[in-house]
């Protein structure tokens, strides 16, 4: 079974905010959806006006999520269906997920005494299936389906209107691929999305360092023990030699004479 994904088509979005309103209702959030301009603990998605375009922001639900890899306690998990979900009870509040997310998506409840990380959960627990935002979109600017279907749909739209789109599916390769795919008439980098992302998944970067930990412990431990042993041995030898030299200096006529005996021949 293919994982689920969202396709966001910037060219179709009319900026009505229905997705924002539906998202807030689905997550029992209160407030005026029309005023929501940046992601916050109270808005898991927003529609931003950028020049002539309306641009949706939400968690990208990466295929190999950075947040999942950096969380020390596994409070963030990628489910088999595609959503990246958060379990507050495990969280220690280190906020490494916020720092590490290449799309800077996770938000925090800064004014709460028992704060949570807040971000889109792709309606992972929605009874009807699918996502509230896709169901609410009147223009099919956001559609929900399997990732393969969404990629096929994106390719179809790019092909049907080659002049209307940049021929690139944002999220197909970025940061190792995401479960939110975007197509747009102008490069996404011009609409506030990061443009300097590597194609390889970011968790590989830290794993390159972490995978050396067993070596440091085992080889490092053996190395240090060897140094201790060698320098101690050297010290013992030096001590014995010093004692012998002292014995020579004290009794030059008896034992000293014997030691040097061989040299006279």
């Amino acid at each position, binding site marked *: 079974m293919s994982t689920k994904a969202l396709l966001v088509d910037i060219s179709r979005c009319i900026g009505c905010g229905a997705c924002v309103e539906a998202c807030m209702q689905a997550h029992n959030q209160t407030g005026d959806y029309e005023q929501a301009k940046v992601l916050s603990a109270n808005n898991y998605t927003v529609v931003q006006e950028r020049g002539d375009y309306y641009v949706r922001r939400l968690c990208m639900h990466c295929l190999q999520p950075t947040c999942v890899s950096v969380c020390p306690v596994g409070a963030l998990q990628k489910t088999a269906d595609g959503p990246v979900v958060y379990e507050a009870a495990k969280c*220690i509040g280190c906020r*490494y997920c916020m720092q590490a997310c290449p799309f800077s998506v996770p938000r925090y409840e800064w004014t709460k005494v028992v704060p949570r990380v807040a971000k889109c959960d792709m309606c992972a627990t929605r009874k009807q299936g699918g996502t509230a935002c896709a169901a609410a979109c009147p223009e099919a600017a956001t559609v929900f389906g399997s990732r393969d279907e969404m990629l096929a749909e994106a390719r179809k739209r790019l092909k049907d209107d080659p002049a209307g789109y940049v021929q690139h599916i944002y999220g197909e390769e970025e940061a190792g691929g995401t479960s939110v795919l975007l197509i747009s008439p102008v490069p996404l980098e011009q609409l506030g999305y990061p443009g300097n992302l590597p194609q390889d998944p970011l968790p590989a970067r830290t794993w390159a360092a972490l995978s050396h930990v067993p070596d*440091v412990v085992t080889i490092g431990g053996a190395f240090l023990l060897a140094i201790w042993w060698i320098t101690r041995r050297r010290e013992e030898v030096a001590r014995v030699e010093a004692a012998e030299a002292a014995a020579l200096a004290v009794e030059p006529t008896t034992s000293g004479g014997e030691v040097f005996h061989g040299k006279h021949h």
Partner: protein
Amino acid sequence: MGNIIKLRRFGFWRAVALILFGLGLASIWVRFTKGLGAVSNLSDQHPWGLWVGFDVLCGVGLAAGGFTITAVVYLFHLKRYRPIVRPAILTAFLGYLLVVFGLLVDLGRPWNIWHPLVMWNPHSVMFEVAWCVTLYTTVLALEFSGMVFERLKWERAARIQHAITLPLVIAGVILSTLHQSSLGSLYLIVPNKLYPLWYTERLPLIFWTSAVCAGLAMVIVESRLSARALGRELELPLLRDIGRALLAALGVFIVLRIRDLWERGVIDLAFKPGYEMWLFQLEVFVGLVVPFILLAVPRIRNSARGLYIASLFTVLGFIANRLNVAVTGLDRAQGGHYVPAVPETLITLMLIALGFTAFNLAAKHLPVYPPATMSRD
């Protein structure tokens, strides 16, 4: 007359410490009743700030004297350095306690601080960091306990503590190596956010090497400070040896840093106008160029004052480096500038005051410095 001045100075610093404790505790009260946002300028754009950049990154780095000096004395058998072992262990132990204290303030859910011990994610650098903090603080507590046992004349406990020195020292060196480098590894995950003057795949190595420099410099700085406060200090010949080691370590670090910038082809950024350029130049000038030149001059290297000043520069440059990685190097990508809030800063100042107070108390009441070096009083 001299005594009165000394007493006044002592009274002044004591008053400063008490005020900082009061203000810090008040800030902590607000933090736990109104949330992190009420006392800090941390935000969704800047989730890590002064507490991570200074309390944790600098606290751990400045504690690095603990593992280097114990390794030199117990593993390399350079007995000459024995008088520094205890002050270095004390510094490291207090440093780690303050890091844990800082974490309890910074973590959103500090009551869950033990979770990484049972909920494993070996792919997370933070998981490694959590284990290193826990294990190395334990090792340091055991290493420190020797001084307490000696003071209390618990001979049996002291003998047992003495018997496990070797495994403790080896564990300490390994855990420190992992921990110092892993604080750099934390930032390997943000290649698209951290400014290229600081982002490099060699961050773990750079963090480890600079921590060794900072740890050595701290030993010299402390000896000087405790000489002023308590009339106890290390002998000059020993300090000169540490100064030479620091010079060598700084040399290695300078080569490493320049080679890294050169190989990645970003050395021109060091001269490309922008606030990153100024901060990078400040860090390199204060923390590397000045102390290296000072220590390279024999007349300065051989004087107590020269050693102290060179070490102070090293420590300040180290702090600048860590803050650049943790805060300013990320500002451009995160948008806007993060400047710590007043209560946020007060909590950090309280931690520093706590560190100085605890060090002075320990140096006064425990056999930290060997009796022979108690020169005055």
